[in-house]
């Protein structure tokens, strides 16, 4: 069984590499299109994770530490983007941001989110944020409330308790969540395609570049972009392991 899985994984990787010859792949990797896609993907995914964390970490802290009416409903609602097919999320975002609803008033201010890189950012943030919230909430819940009580009686304000006690103690799990969210944002395709569209050198993230180039038969660039995605995924896995193993001393 294990062998079958390994063969499958290796087969997929080998199939990817075999599609292009070495020199062809190298020039495709250096092509302006691959470079653009890489730059855009990195910028957008990092921004999406940062925005998601800025909103998600405090929200998770609130969810983990406070009791309020309708918390269960709220909690479930936050999980919806996790199980929603990206394509469906994209369609929903498209309608929400399109001319019918928010798009109209925003257009009067000269802001066009749909079919622009901003749309891609929103799509990626939409899928990345719940992942950050989930892991951060679990992380905060695992911090012994006794530390918080001790810190408060020692004179630390709620904000300082959050920054100096809870955040460091939950930090590693939050970082893991951020890495997973980053991976998810980087590979995000369905929702991005719906909201931002697939326009070369405009909304062309790495997954969109793979899609565009496979459809137009330019396999070199497609494979190059796919391999860059695979390489990044490996890097993320490595980072995740590092985060989860490091710093057990003293905890």
């Amino acid at each position: 069984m294990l062998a079958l899985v390994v063969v499958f994984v290796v087969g997929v990787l080998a199939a990817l590499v075999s599609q292009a010859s070495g020199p062809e792949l190298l020039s495709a990797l250096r092509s302006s299109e691959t470079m653009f896609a890489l730059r855009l993907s990195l910028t957008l995914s990092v921004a999406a994770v940062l925005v998601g964390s800025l909103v998600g970490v405090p929200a998770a802290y609130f969810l983990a530490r406070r009791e309020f009416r309708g918390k269960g409903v709220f909690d479930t609602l936050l999980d919806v983007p996790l199980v929603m097919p990206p394509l469906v999320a994209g369609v929903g975002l498209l309608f929400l941001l399109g001319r019918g609803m928010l798009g109209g008033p925003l257009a009067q201010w000269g802001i066009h989110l749909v079919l622009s890189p901003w749309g891609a950012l929103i799509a990626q943030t939409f899928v990345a944020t719940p992942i950050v919230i989930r892991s951060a909430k679990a992380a905060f819940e695992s911090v012994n409330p006794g530390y918080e009580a001790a810190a408060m009686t020692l004179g630390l304000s709620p904000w300082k308790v959050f920054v100096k006690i809870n955040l460091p103690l939950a930090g590693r799990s939050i970082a893991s969540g951020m890495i997973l969210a980053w991976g998810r944002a980087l590979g995000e395709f369905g929702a991005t395609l719906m909201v931002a569209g697939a326009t070369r050198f405009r909304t062309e993230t790495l997954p969109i570049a793979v899609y565009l180039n496979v459809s137009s038969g330019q396999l070199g660039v497609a494979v190059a972009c796919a391999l860059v995605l695979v390489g990044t995924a490996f890097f993320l896995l490595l980072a995740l392991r590092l985060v989860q193993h490091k710093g057990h001393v003293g905890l």
Partner: protein
Amino acid sequence: MSEIEIIGVRNRFLKDVRLRVSEGKTFVIVGPSGAGKTSLLRAIAGLEPHEGTIIVDGREIQRLPPHLREIGYVSQDLDLFPHLTLEGNLIIAMNRLRVTWNRKKQRARELMELLRIVPLAERYPSALSGGEKQRAALARVLASEPKILLLDEPLSKLDFRTARYLRSELLSLLNRLRVTAIFVTHNMEEAREMGDDLAVMTEGTLTHTGSPAELRLTDSCPGDSFLERPNILCPVHKEFSGNGIVKITWAGSRWYVPDEGREFTHVAVSPSRIDIGPKPPQGPSINRFTATVSSVHHSDDSVRLTVHVNGEALRVEITGERAQWLRPVPGDVVHGLVRLTAFEIM
């Protein structure tokens, strides 16, 4: 230092608690578990919702959040921050004080010297022993310069010897620093030794308030039903065998106690760690005894017996459940066992 007055404090677990601790005094609250002792301390510290009035130095503080109350609280778990070194734990506690970083370092050092933990400054809490953690928690709470100090059974998780040693140290520290403190314990001996004033807490309310002398808690007093004094055995003969065991003679029989590589004069064993039954227990015949029950005293959830082993008295505490099955009455002959690890040498 300051004084504190508590008037009509109540919540889910507390019923109209009132008490007053004057400047520099230690007020000890004794009571069985579940009596509301921890709840009272948490309410005073602002960690648990409550009604009623709390006055520190003439100022009402019951509406203030915990970080503005200036009340230091050491919980039973101590709650040293695991991500900070001992020194880091002390420095973060000085957050409220408007002093420079160097002054904080210096003060942390002074407190560590006071509690004799300077060599442990760079250690994380996970690398400290029970007694060291205790001192660290005390140093940390003192670092925050609280007006009132609340101590929740600070010695309960330590072994008997360390607890006894630390108790006298804590007592002299509180006296020297003139700290106003409320100290919670379920150990009567500890209460008598530590308290300027003493109160018994049962079912969320304080009864029997007074000085230890006024409050002569004899065996008939309600406060004594949770007494946890250990049996102190004075062996007539000791034989160091060199394999981790010391053979002692007490009450005319041989007992095996742990060898900690040092001389000792007494051996302690907690009443609750002595097993008794109607038949001789199975297994090797080490640390077994046969005794006659001389008194039986029922309390809420346990039964306390005094048994005599060859003329020497031994206090034994068994759970209510076990007592239902054993049904001991004075005059019964019982068989018992004290495990090697239940003994503590002193």
